[in-house]
């Protein structure tokens, strides 16, 4: 080939490739992660979904003569898509687990943008071949309210939002799963508040009792992340009334650089522990923690396992079990017990959220800390402690 032609085409290829990147980036930034309130990497949370045993025979009611093998599930993820190592991957873990336990089949669909969600919902519902359509993420809600009413025979599951008609009634054929993130965040906030008030040294970091100070890094300022922040602050203040809590938002779910910058500033200003609810941005928070020799708290998944390289600073994670939500909803369909028009509100009591101690810190925390945590957990479940949902 002519060398010039070759060079030119190479240039063109590179340009087109670059353009592709630009397009992808913008798609990702815009909303891509509208639902990925959290982060993680890997999918280490094996304990979430594995707790149901295959119950393929006991499904006489509801779906008539359907057997578990016939159950077909349509999965519509949020625009962050699979491979986000967090929210969507957790949902995927749930359906995979259900496949392994019940032998169901499923079809994934990954919308590029919220506008595609409507198309996928309608395509699944309209085909009539799916027993259940799982809509992952709150961006689905507006379209789902309409589509679920139109396809009233289709069973839907909605995660992270509640499908209500304009009159305020629940849509009959949608099962809603929402999480009380503030409860789990209160727990990790309480842990952070206790540790910064005492002298603690384990793993690659330490705290000192003077100047009790903790931090919070959010992704984008959405209502859900506000629940994380509100719970965290309340928990930290419960541990120590004089505590200083710095909060900041990175404005993005996939910008570890900004995450690192923010967290470094917080550590430099005396924060001992930083909790992030910022998707992939949180990776930067862990980096900052390691270089500052301070602690960090993960989110969504047990990040001391999924982001194992940082397990010496990740003292705990606020785990949100999206996989359990998906798994349970599929189980209910398999058993013919699907209940539309209901809201599953999952908090500490239901194990929907939980403060999970990091793998390097298991059994290494002072017993007064773990006792206090167990106490507030009981307090929240029993209703003695009221956790605010808004900052």
């Amino acid at each position, binding site marked *: 080939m*002519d060398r010039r032609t070759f060079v030119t085409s190479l240039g063109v290829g590179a340009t087109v490739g670059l353009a592709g990147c630009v397009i992808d980036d913008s798609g990702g930034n815009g909303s891509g992660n509208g639902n990925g309130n959290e982060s993680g990497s890997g999918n280490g949370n094996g304990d979430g979904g594995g707790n149901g045993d295959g119950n393929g025979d006991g499904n006489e009611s509801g779906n008539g003569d359907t057997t578990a093998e016939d159950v077909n599930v349509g999965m519509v993820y949020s625009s962050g898509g699979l491979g986000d190592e967090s929210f969507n991957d957790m949902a995927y873990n749930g359906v995979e687990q259900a496949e392994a336990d019940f032998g169901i089949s499923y079809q994934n*669909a990954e919308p*590029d943008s919220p506008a595609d969600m409507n198309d996928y919902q*309608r*395509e699944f519902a309209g085909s009539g071949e799916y027993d259940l359509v799982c809509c992952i993420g*709150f961006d689905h*809600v507006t379209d789902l309210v309409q589509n679920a009413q139109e396809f009233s025979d289709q069973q839907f599951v909605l995660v992270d*939002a509640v499908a209500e008609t304009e009159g305020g009634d629940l849509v009959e054929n949608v099962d809603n799963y929402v999480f009380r993130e503030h409860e789990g965040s209160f727990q990790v906030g309480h842990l952070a508040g206790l540790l910064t008030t005492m002298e603690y040294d384990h793993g690659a970091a330490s705290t000192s009792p003077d100047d009790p100070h903790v931090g919070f890094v959010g992704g984008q*300022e959405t209502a859900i992340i506000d629940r994380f922040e509100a719970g965290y602050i309340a928990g930290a203040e419960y541990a120590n009334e004089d505590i200083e809590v710095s909060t900041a938002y990175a404005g993005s779910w996939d910008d570890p650089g900004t995450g690192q910058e923010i967290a470094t500033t917080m550590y430099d200003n005396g924060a001992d522990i930083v909790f992030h609810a910022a998707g992939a941005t949180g990776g930067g928070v862990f980096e900052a923690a390691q270089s500052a020799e301070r602690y960090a708290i993960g989110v969504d998944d047990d990040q001391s396992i999924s982001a194992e390289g940082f397990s010496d600073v990740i003292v705990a994670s606020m785990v949100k079990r999206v996989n359990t939500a998906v798994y349970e909803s599929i189980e209910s369909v398999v058993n013919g017990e699907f209940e539309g028009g209901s809201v599953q509100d999952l908090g500490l009591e239901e194990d929907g959220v939980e403060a999970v101690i990091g793998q390097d810190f298991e059994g290494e925390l002072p017993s007064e800390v773990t006792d206090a945590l167990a106490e507030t957990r009981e307090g929240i479940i029993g209703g003695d402690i009221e956790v605010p949902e808004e900052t």
Partner: protein
Amino acid sequence: MSSGGRGSDGDRETESGGSGGSSDADRGRGGDWRNRGRQTLAWLVNASAVQRIAISLTALAFAVLVGGALVFASGFVASCRQPVIYIPLLGESCYNPVEVYWTMLEGSFGSLPNLARTLQETTLLLFTGLSVAVAFRAGLFNVGTQGQMVLGALATGLALVPLGSVLPDSVVGMLVAVPIGLVAGAVVGGFWGFIPGAMKSYADANEVITTIMLNFVATGIAFYLVSEHLGDPGTGSVQTVPVPSVARLPPTVDGSRFSVLALVGALLVAVGIFWLYDRTILGYELRTSGLQESAAEYSGVDAKRNVVTSMTLSGALGGIAGAIYVMMVHYRWQTGMPSLGFDGIAVSVLAGNNPIGVIPAALLFGGLKSGSFAVDFALGVPGELVVVLRGLIILFVAMPEFFRMIGTYYDFGDQPETAAADGGERQ
């Protein structure tokens, strides 16, 4: 790189078959690739409209072949429950390329709802493609159509919400609401195009840089406004209150979100832009101002103002794309709008920046998008592979046109004769 090589092979074959009159062709046999390259470029520049269409179709065929081979080969690496084929030594392949392409075709044009989905995307791409083409025509590279569209869509979404309680829910109400939505989008989008235009004219700021940066500013402003002040309080998602039904373009096909009214409007705009730029004095002035500022100034044209006008017009078209998106597709503004503005750049380049050419280019893109939706849905082929197929088709079809632009730029070919030969005498 193999793809590029095959593409030009195809062109050369067509060359010997098509023009047949290259007296220098023999020289190439000695391995004189440089010369052959020059000839190919010259031939591309001289190609008649019929030949160019033939080239595009050949390129499409090659793209399908290469893409098919790629899909088939990837099938050997993937694991699946029901392999399509088993080849000794190689193993089994999971993907059937014929099935993939058939699903793509079926998914884009095979049924009325599928066609509606294709045309929905086509309509939006027509506006963004025209937005980019208008700027290109005036020698300006507007990368900011995305931002102009995002803000235009937000303006439309906000302007239409209060109309629900004022206007009757009837055709009359729609005749009032739809123009209001279009004007709101066009004004705000136009303003967002005006800024880089003015910066280019009066501060000598490169419009490529400013428009790229203004995309981020637009997205940030829109996100902030909606999440903090103007959003729908009833949802956790960052979105505005849905627009009232009076402001929604009626779907032409039941269950779809496509209105033939919008498509007809888009086609009329394409023709109008063509007419404006090729048949009017204003259009001529707009073109010269961007391409050759000093020449325009000498002939008494205010080139600086015309650059601003071109960018404003381009931005207004981007804003209208946003308005149509809100009124026809999404019925609300929501963060994470699709990247139609960036796709518009590709559409415009594919069309050779010709407003009429934008029509088939937008249709191709719309069909590919709709078709890949169907593949993603119906087959086990991963979405990324479908994106590769889409990219290959675009790359192959755009390449000859791209080399033609290079050839024209470096004065290959025989320009005056081309004009004379355009009637097809060459064949």
